[in-house]
């Protein structure tokens, strides 16, 4: 028996050894070495084009299948489902009253029972379709991308499609996922190790130079760990020292995407665990702005530390996400004014993900971080575009809120996102009563206003 196993054992060991070596050499040559030097073979773009062709075919097959069975296909509507007229409260209530009475408007009564129609209709409209709640769930896709998580027409799949889907599953979980996990592991450990090493050097030009190179290299490895295919536009507007870089927030991956193209000082809360280890070693190589949990509540302290950092021109530009939470990349929500109050030049950046290859949005109320990373690493790819917008400064007579809104509008326009005034915090909290009070005030003016006119005449 032993004789029988030994040669097999040896053979097995040899085979395993060879495949490991081949695997690692390929990894090194095609992925890690280019990452170190910042060049690309173009493999990922080719991969992307092939995938697109397959997706188109898959969608056509589903549509054909549904037509054959004479069933209705669930069609996702990325735009609104109901027609909402943008008339104001005053206009609409006047219209309702006009249609209901023969008298002309000046001698109209203050209150009509029909006024309630306006509120009823607006209320039911918002129940059918509102602008806010749909920003906190993943965007719906028009074509299927062979991931069950984004398919609603699953029952119309033919045999060929099922085979393709199984193949896709095998490739994603059997080949891509282990590859990516290895890369991520490599990237993160290199980052921690090398930055700690650099931290031992005395402060100076050599340290800064090395720190930059190390950071860029490790982030590039992480980018490849997610198979992220990023297109940078307008790189001449890249943020400079002493400025604040501001971007829309969709997922924690945003950081990796931006930091692989330039060096930034990160801002955030110190976490425990692995995150904390990474944060602490990063700050040894170059100054980032990490806050303790207790310090985060103190607005003045935060503002002071940020402005101190910004005034030191030798320090890297700060990277901030003013929405404060992850939004699903169809819109930009209210920017918190803190970072716009400091008085530094703001470099806006718009990030738009292509949802066809993998949904990058992190629904933090539904999925934890590990679950999210697993989703990310088992998608096809992360494809996104980054636009660097020209720098903006606060103008005369503009307060922080107006400045923040101006920057937000520019980012929304460039990225093709909807510009909303609503607060991203509505993901978890209730809306403030002040908005309701505004509506009540508007309506009251209509009732009381007419009384004043009457008393005059």
């Amino acid at each position: 028996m032993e004789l029988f196993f030994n040669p097999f054992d040896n053979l097995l060991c040899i085979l395993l050894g060879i495949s490991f070596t081949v695997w690692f050499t390929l990894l090194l040559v095609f992925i890690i070495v280019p990452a170190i030097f910042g060049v690309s073979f173009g493999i990922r773009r080719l991969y992307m084009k092939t995938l697109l062709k397959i997706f188109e075919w898959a969608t056509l097959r589903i549509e054909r299948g549904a037509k054959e069975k004479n069933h209705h296909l669930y069609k996702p509507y990325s735009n609104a489902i109901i027609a909402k007229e943008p008339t104001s409260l005053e206009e609409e209530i006047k219209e309702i009253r006009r249609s209901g009475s023969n008298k002309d408007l000046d001698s109209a009564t203050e209150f009509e029972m029909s006024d309630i129609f306006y509120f009823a209709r607006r209320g039911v409209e918002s129940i059918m379709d509102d602008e806010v709640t749909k920003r906190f769930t993943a965007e719906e896709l028009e074509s299927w991308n062979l991931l069950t998580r984004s398919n609603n027409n699953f029952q119309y799949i033919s045999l060929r499609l099922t085979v393709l889907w199984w193949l896709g599953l095998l490739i994603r979980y059997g080949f891509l996922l282990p590859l990516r996990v290895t890369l991520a592991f490599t990237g993160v450990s290199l980052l921690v190790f090398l930055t700690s090493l650099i931290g031992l050097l005395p402060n100076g030009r050599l340290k800064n130079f090395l720190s930059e190179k190390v950071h860029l290299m490790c982030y590039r490895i992480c980018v490849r760990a997610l198979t992220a295919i990023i297109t940078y536009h307008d790189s001449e507007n890249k943020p400079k020292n002493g400025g604040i870089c501001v971007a829309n927030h969709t997922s924690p991956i945003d950081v990796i995407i931006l930091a692989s193209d330039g060096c930034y000082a990160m801002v955030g809360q110190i976490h425990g665990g692995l995150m904390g280890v990474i944060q602490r070693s990063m700050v040894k190589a170059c100054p980032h702005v990490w806050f303790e949990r207790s310090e985060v509540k103190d607005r003045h302290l935060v503002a002071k530390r940020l402005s101190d950092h910004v005034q030191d021109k030798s320090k890297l530009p700060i990277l901030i996400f003013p929405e404060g939470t992850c939004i699903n990349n169809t819109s930009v929500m209210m920017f918190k004014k803190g970072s716009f109050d400091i008085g530094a030049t703001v470099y806006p950046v718009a990030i738009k993900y292509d949802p066809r290859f993998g949904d990058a949005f992190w629904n933090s109320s539904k999925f934890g971080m590990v679950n999210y990373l697993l989703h990310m690493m088992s998608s096809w790819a992360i494809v996104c575009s980054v636009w660097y917008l020209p720098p903006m400064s606060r103008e005369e007579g503009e307060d922080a809120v107006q400045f923040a809104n101006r920057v937000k509008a520019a980012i929304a326009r460039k990225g093709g996102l909807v510009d909303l005034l609503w607060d991203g915090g509505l993901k978890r909290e209730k809306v403030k009563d002040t908005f309701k009070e505004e509506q009540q005030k508007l309506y009251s003016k209509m009732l009381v206003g007419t009384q004043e006119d009457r008393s005059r005449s």
Partner: protein
Amino acid sequence: MGSRASTLLREEEIEEIKKETGFSHSQITRLYSRFTSLDKGENGTLSREDFQRIPELAINPLGDRIINAFFPEGEDQVNFRGFMRTLAHFRPIEDNEKNKNPPATEPLNSRANKLLFAFRLYDLDRDDKISRDELLQVLRMMVGVNISDEQLGSIADRTIQEADTNGDNCISFQEFMKVLEKVDVEQKMSIRFLH
């Protein structure tokens, strides 16, 4: 993973809802998707909290009254059928519907039913009468703190005086309909679908 449960809505159910409410197939599946996205507890019904999570509804002065319209007397959960039945009041009245054979029961989006929806927003205790007190309460919801009690009281008194024909100091549904007989209810209480 990613349960957008249009698969959970059976064809027979869609047909029944179509007959009862008049919505089209695609409108029903679309609204079902909306229903499930509002249903955070994923138990097939909506509670009042699920509605209040919609910011645009929460800032509507009559938000609570509208939410109440979805829940039958004494109940705290509404299922998809009930949801659709209430939304059906706001379906536009199509011209060709008038030409077809009139259905056995009055459609949910008829002029009378739209007015009944509005009437019930005023009628807080569901006794089919709008008393002075109820009118005052609803007015108070609409104006907030911006108008004094006396002014509001006189507005309520005048409204009841103009509408009340049988002298019981309350507005019945018939009197309500009479006051609003010239208002373009069909257009103002209808929501148009884009597809």
